């Protein structure tokens, strides 16, 4: 072995909830663990035990391990140590904590995807409280927000986060790296209840197909039965041209997003607030999505301080047919939800459909109809979601049906 020292993690004045580990393998002398921790008094003992356990798991008998800890949770410390170990030792073993009960939920094809919050994949402090802001989805990002030399440790951190961090019901998404590098990411994701993969800079159906093949292989290997959904991101002129092909590449492609930073760069145009330069791309993409019966998702709005401009932006976006948008700051979530919220007419229609469905169920009818029109189950489902969303946004009360029936009668 030529290189016997490895490091992983982050340190510095602004770093929180993370640690920086330095591992040096030795020929003799046993295990020596040194901790510099701001929570030493409270967690010094348990952290030491964790370190010993991980080293013994990887059959390391002689080493010096130094941890500079800024309040990292065990799942973070473990990811960092494992990353350092894997720099030095070739092994397929994985040091895993049990997946917490709260993380065992699944997601559905049809669910609302108004907001998805990007979380840099190597920054634990941003992951811990992401779920409390109630985005529809969280995205653990392995791509642009992770430095090139940190890609491997981010894979392990994201894996541990998927198992151990409670995202409070948000759809669990990961943005993998650009094809074909992203193919290496997914073995850290598929066995850990990832719901959806975001496929950046997607430029053709073949990429989706190759990715699917790899996913299927892993699913089989790990007995994963539920579908892993895909959201390709169109970020180039070629991607835009191939939008429909990508949207229909697999039944697991349930939504498609556009990334305007890279797209405008590819065009050689400047990205403006009015977004005239990307008008074609956006409408073309929306059309492809609608033709493929999947959700069209808009790019992020990068001025996190300007909520009014964001609100305007979402309105335009909704007007073009988009059904969701990326967020880079938790404060954007509420604005996005409010702006994508169903309008009064939409809610009224949903009330009628759901009411008809309840009626039919009560009467034991297999078919739901509204007037002379038959209603398909997905439409009912969607209407139910509209109602639930309207309730959660406080637009209608939980007892809406009583009021609805009352109005009908009156």
């Amino acid at each position, binding site marked *: 072995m030529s290189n016997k020292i490895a490091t992983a993690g982050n340190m510095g004045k602004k770093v929180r909830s993370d640690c920086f580990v330095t591992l040096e393998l030795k020929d003799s002398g046993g295990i020596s663990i040194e901790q510099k921790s701001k929570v030493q008094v*409270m*967690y010094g003992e348990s952290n030491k035990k964790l370190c010993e356990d991980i080293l013994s798991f990887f059959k390391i008998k002689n080493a010096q391990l130094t941890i500079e800890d800024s*309040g990292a949770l065990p799942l973070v410390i473990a990811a960092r140590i494992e990353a350092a170990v894997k720099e030095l030792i070739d092994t397929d073993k994985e040091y895993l904590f049990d997946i917490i009960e709260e993380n065992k939920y699944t997601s559905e094809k049809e669910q609302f995807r108004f907001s998805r919050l990007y979380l840099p994949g190597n920054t634990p402090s941003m992951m811990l409280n992401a779920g409390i*802001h109630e985005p529809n989805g969280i995205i653990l990002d392995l791509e642009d927000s992770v430095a090139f030399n940190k890609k491997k440790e981010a894979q392990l951190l994201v894996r541990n986060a998927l198992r151990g961090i409670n995202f409070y019901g948000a759809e669990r998404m990961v943005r993998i790296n650009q094809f074909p590098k992203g193919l290496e990411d997914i073995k850290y994701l598929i066995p850990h209840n990832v719901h959806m993969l975001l496929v950046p800079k997607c430029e053709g159906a073949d990429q989706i197909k190759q990715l699917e093949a790899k996913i299927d292989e892993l699913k089989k290997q790990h007995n994963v039965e539920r579908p892993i959904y895909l959201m390709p991101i169109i970020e180039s002129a070629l991607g835009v041209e191939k939008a429909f092909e990508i949207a229909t590449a697999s039944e697991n492609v349930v939504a498609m997003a556009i990334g305007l930073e890279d797209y405008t760069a590819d065009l050689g145009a400047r990205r403006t607030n009015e977004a005239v330069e990307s008008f074609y791309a956006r409408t073309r993409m929306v059309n492809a999505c609608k033709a493929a019966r999947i959700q069209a998702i808009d790019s992020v709005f990068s001025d996190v301080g300007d909520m009014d401009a964001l609100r305007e932006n979402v309105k335009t976006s909704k007007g073009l047919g988009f059904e969701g948008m990326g967020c880079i700051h938790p404060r954007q979530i509420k604005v996005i939800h409010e702006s994508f919220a169903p309008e009064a007419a939409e809610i009224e229609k949903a009330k009628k459909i759901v009411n008809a469905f309840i009626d039919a169920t009560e009467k034991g009818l297999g078919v739901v109809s509204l007037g002379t029109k038959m209603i398909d189950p997905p439409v009912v489902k969607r209407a139910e979601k509209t109602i639930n969303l309207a309730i959660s946004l406080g637009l209608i009360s939980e007892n809406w049906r009583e009021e609805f029936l009352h109005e009908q009668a009156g």
Partner: protein
Amino acid sequence: MSKLVKNAVGRMVPTEINGKEVIPFKGIGKHRPSGRKYAPPIPTVIDYPEDGNKVIGSLKEALQKCGLKDGMTISTHHHLRNGDLVSNTIFDTAAELGVKDLVWFPSASFPCNEPIIKHLESGVVNRIEGSMNGPLGRFVSQGKMKGTAVLRSHGGRVQAIQDGEVQIDIAILAAPSSDAFGNGNALNGPSACGVLGYATADFRYADKVIVVTDNLVDFPNMPMEIEGNYVDYVVVVDKIGIPEKIVSGTTQITKSPDRLLIAELTARFLQESEILKDGCYMQAGAGGTSLAIGHYVHQILKEKGWKSKLGFGGSTKYMVQMLEEGTMEHIMDAQAFDLDAVASIDKNKNHHQYPVFNAYNYHSKGNLTSMMDIMILGATEVDVNFNGNVVTHSDGYLLHGIGGWQNCLHAKNVILPIPLFRDRIPVIKDEVTTICGPGEMIDIIVTERGIAINPKRKDLIEKMKDSKLPIKTIEELKAEAEAICGPSQKPQLSDEIVAAIKWVDGTVIDVVRKVVD
């Protein structure tokens, strides 16, 4: 060491501190004082210049003329905050004069007071009775201070002075402006800080009073917040403070999404519970989360066309904005946190200077804070019995003062908006490291993961039973934090007592013990 007894919150406390007898905490409203207030010696104008000019050559000369000697108690005030240049100079001068065993009685200390450590080490200063943070707190926690520290609230400090529990030999008042007679205020001059609320009790009760200013103005210096009739000497120096460290040029609403969420939950709770109402009295601090709560409350009041009758300072530009936009009728202020607030005192007639800290005094004829509807406070820890800690961290180190915290607990609705954990340090414990406030006085804890209502507030629990807000029990919140952070060890503490925590009535509610490293 004196014997230890168990006080009314179950903590073992001594009956004697620094050689003086003390009373263990008996419960809220249980201790009744007796006797008469303390009084300083009677002065006579015979000893003071007829032309009213009390200016003297130097601080050293003033201290000598005040008869500075071993064992004296010296009081100072923290209105110059981290820009204070006077306090350290006093003890440097005392060291030069070879004086020992002084008691420093500041209204609070700041990181800029770190140089006092060398005087604690050399024996010039025996102990600090007052808040201490940062390096001083660490020094005390490690058991390095000769005497035992005594921590009091702002109101408790006034009570201790008034009752003669602390007898100030020399009060030294840094004044942003003063005339030669000693009339001082904080409205003008390079170190203008708005108000001098901490100092009033001191100049009234101290044996000797020295005003130190860098801005000597003509008589009469109006308004006279420091009344020259109480002043012995006026010392003029080049600089009493570093302006940019005195008032934060501007206070800022938090940008942290998690804290904003806590603030929003707090405001929604206040609205739904109808604690927030037209004409309510409110107080919130200058921390980022408190400011955000103020901002949301301002929005709600505006929407409803309501108005808060009264806001208690420390004031900030956000409070001033409420005053100017008509959602607050009066500000009563003992300290100004930013430049906009300083300017407002001069500009707005309903922005009143008011020695709030005297009004916090529990041994007086009415408690101002018990009139407040909304009281937003912080804490380093709370426990499942709602007891609160503001002075020590979970590692046992003494790192904050009490400030007005204990006094403010008397409000009708005490709300603590706090994160459930900070960098893996859970805030809700089985037992707080140090009890600064009994749980029966803390009503609501708002965290980013849920809101706990004190079980004794049956009215609030009933009112909020159908709320969509995440109302949980405090045990549930604690379990949630523990599930995330993991079980923690307790700090190792020795038996040695390094500090006593006084309750607002002068009794001892808890002690701080030396940390074993």
